[in-house]
């Protein structure tokens, strides 16, 4: 019906053109499939929920450089001042910033004897106060928050408590409630009193990003986090600097940024990768379609007489159009199949040498479908020109 057999045999006879197209399509499918897979994977990564109200949390650092400052005392006063500022909904000290790429990480034991006890996976070790949950906008789903009188001054103090992320609890005690469970540092114990639904750590590329623990320590003198409407952050920066400098001028207050900004910076390399790869995909499709158009034009020129003869023998314009379409679909499909296999091979190599997951088959498939579309557009325009070749051409110059 579509005259595939004669088209196929004519393809076999004129080697160079179709072979070139075939190779080009094979390579394009392999590249586009892998690139779009990586793009999708990175996009998904960036869309993960951190559990934090990223836009509202403003973070900054306070560096007390006068040796005569009593850090602990100053920390208490500073937090009082912060909570007293207008528009501040909550404020707390912290030892590290979420999603920032730097901070404390640790493992703990599940029993008192370090020789025999199993240890937990690595987790982000936040030091925080009774205000941490509210400041970050975390959702407490089980247990309770710290009470004000439970907050320790140092990590070595007894009475160690923890609020953990749900993911961490599920990893350590699968199928059980984590509240009331004990973790150990040598023979000192740390009791889990609360679970938050989601709370990411600091390292966005880590497999343990979802594992976080908030430990009840008011960590003096590095970073602070306050919660306020995003629109008020700029005014708040000035207010905070002014209020804290008035309290004690011997310090540097710096690094104001929202958690959303911190997050954006941490994902910058992934965003870059997405941009470059997207650009590559678009350009590649463009180049391939240009190449296709060029090849079809070349074919038409070479076969002008043939087309004229066919027209003279009774072929309609539609027949000519479908001839070129079918011919190029054949090339595109076989190229697509080979290209998809190459894409899978390439994906396996990437997976072997680099930290990439297995290529999902949907990507080569989608790419082949996309290529068919591009082929249609690239072929129809010149082929319509071919269809307009007059039958009289056949009689000329024979």
């Amino acid at each position, binding site marked *: 019906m579509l005259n595939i057999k004669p088209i196929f045999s004519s393809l076999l006879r004129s080697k*160079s053109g179709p072979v070139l197209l075939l190779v*080009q399509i094979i390579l394009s499918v392999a590249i586009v499939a892998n690139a779009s897979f990586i793009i999708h994977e990175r996009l998904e990564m960036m869309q993960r929920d951190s559990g934090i109200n990223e836009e509202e949390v403003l973070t900054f650092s306070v*560096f007390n*450089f006068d040796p005569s400052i009593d850090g602990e005392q100053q920390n208490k006063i500073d937090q009082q001042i912060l909570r007293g500022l207008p528009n501040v909904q909550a404020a707390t000290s912290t030892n590290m910033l979420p999603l920032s790429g730097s901070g404390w990480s640790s493992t703990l034991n599940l029993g008192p004897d370090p020789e025999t006890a199993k240890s937990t996976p690595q987790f982000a070790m936040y030091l925080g106060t009774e205000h941490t949950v509210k400041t970050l906008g975390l959702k407490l789903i089980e247990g309770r928050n710290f009470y004000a009188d439970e907050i320790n001054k140092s990590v070595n103090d007894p009475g160690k408590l923890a609020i953990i992320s749900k993911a961490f609890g599920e990893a350590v005690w699968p199928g059980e409630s984590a509240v009331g469970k004990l973790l150990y540092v040598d023979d000192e114990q740390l009791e889990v009193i609360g679970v938050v639904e989601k709370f990411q750590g600091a390292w966005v590329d880590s497999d343990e990003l979802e594992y976080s623990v908030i430990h009840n320590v008011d960590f003096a003198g590095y970073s602070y986090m306050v919660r306020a409407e995003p629109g008020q952050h700029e005014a708040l920066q000035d207010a905070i600097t002014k209020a804290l400098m008035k309290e004690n001028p011997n310090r*540097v207050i*710096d690094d104001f940024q929202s958690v959303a900004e911190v997050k954006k910076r941490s994902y910058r390399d992934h965003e*870059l990768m997405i941009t*470059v790869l997207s650009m590559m995909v678009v*350009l590649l499709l463009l180049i391939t379609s240009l190449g296709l158009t*060029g090849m079809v034009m070349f074919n038409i020129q070479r076969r002008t007489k043939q087309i004229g003869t066919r027209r003279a023998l009774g072929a309609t314009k539609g027949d000519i159009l479908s001839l070129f379409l079918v011919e190029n679909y054949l090339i595109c499909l076989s190229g697509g199949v080979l290209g998809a296999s190459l894409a899978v091979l390439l994906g396996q190599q990437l997976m072997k040498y680099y930290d990439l997951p297995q290529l999902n088959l949907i990507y080569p498939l989608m790419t082949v479908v996309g290529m068919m579309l591009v082929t249609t557009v690239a072929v129809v325009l010149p082929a319509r020109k071919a269809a307009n070749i007059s039958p009289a051409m056949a009689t000329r110059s024979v």
Partner: protein
Amino acid sequence: MFLYYVDLAWRSIRKTPILSLLMVLAISVGIGITITTLNVYSMMAYNPAGERSEQLNAIQLWSQGPDSWDDFHRLVTYQDAMNLRKGNVAPAQAAMFRSGMAVQTDDPEVLPRLQGIRVTDGDFFKMFEVPFVYGNRWDKAVDLDPAYQAVIGEKLNQKLFGGENSVGKTIYLNRKPYQVVGVIGDWNPQPKYYDPTSGAFAKSEQIYIPFSLAANEEFSVWGNSSGWKHEPMNNYQDRLNSEKVWLEYWTYLPTPEDRAAYKNYLANYVEQQKELGRFTDNKSPVDSVLMSNVDGWLERSHVVPEDNKILVGLSALFLSVCLINILGLMLTKFLKRAPEVGVRRAIGASRGQIFSQYMVEVGVIGLFGGLVGLLWAWGALYALSARFGVAEGLTHLSMSMWLITPTIAVGTALLAGLYPAWVVCRTKPSVYLKSQ
């Protein structure tokens, strides 16, 4: 003859402007992407140590206990650093870490500013060939007997002292006076190979102070500290006595004999420490030490991210698609001109002449493509640094690219042109003469 071919090529290009433009565009896009990724990659993979690469060796020790880390840590403990410093076997050596303090001067107008500080030994400047504008490193005696002295960078000197010779002046770090003994020039090796752990493409510090002060002054650590066992850290002394790793240790060992001897010395040192009850993992002393030259160190520090390797690979594939593309276009173009070739052959041009004429034409197109591609790459790199804040050192179009780009462009174009030119030069004159 060559010039005549160039002239013919130019005419032929002008005769089919759209097709030629398509070809130039196809090459230029492929070249643009390839050069962009290649440029970033080559900047990242650059070894700033040059010929000293072999001679500078970072020391890594397997000080961890059994069942802890699976690999050598890039940092060493304070105890080990101090012991190696005391051993004083290498011709030059430096322990170091990154810290930070608030800087002030005698001028009350200068607001205190927080500055990253490198705490290291005096040999640092000699080992890493740091250029001095004024003054010099602190005296070697200071490395044993601490003194409050500092070397500052040109930029900071500009800000604090207006760029004049500040040797002998005082700066205050966390309110403590330090005497400036030297001002170093513009020195910012990228990657920052002497300490990639705190950002491989971070700028070099503007203040350097003696490592010998660390124990007394308890400088805060602005880099990594890692421990493989639980150790209470109630004060700075605990940190110094602990098995935590947080220091880089570099040695300068000019000859292979020096390096072999130093390795031997390290193995002996580990054996000694094993007797003292440290280095408890069951690894032989020789296997517990690792000396990496700069190349090896950059490799171990994963300075070039995997993403960049993937991008270079994909863009090379991309370029090959462009190559096949122009191959097809060129075939179209050349065969269109077959009648003309027929006439030239009939008048007496040899196959070789036709072939070289077309290769020249292809080469010219490739050269144009390369030039436009260089523009693309330049634009893309500019966009990268503007939009993504990629370190300036990485987005600067390297000089070598001015040579590499045309080479790749003309090379790929010639490669793509081989087949079409061969096809066209086999044209039989008779066929075309007949049909005219």
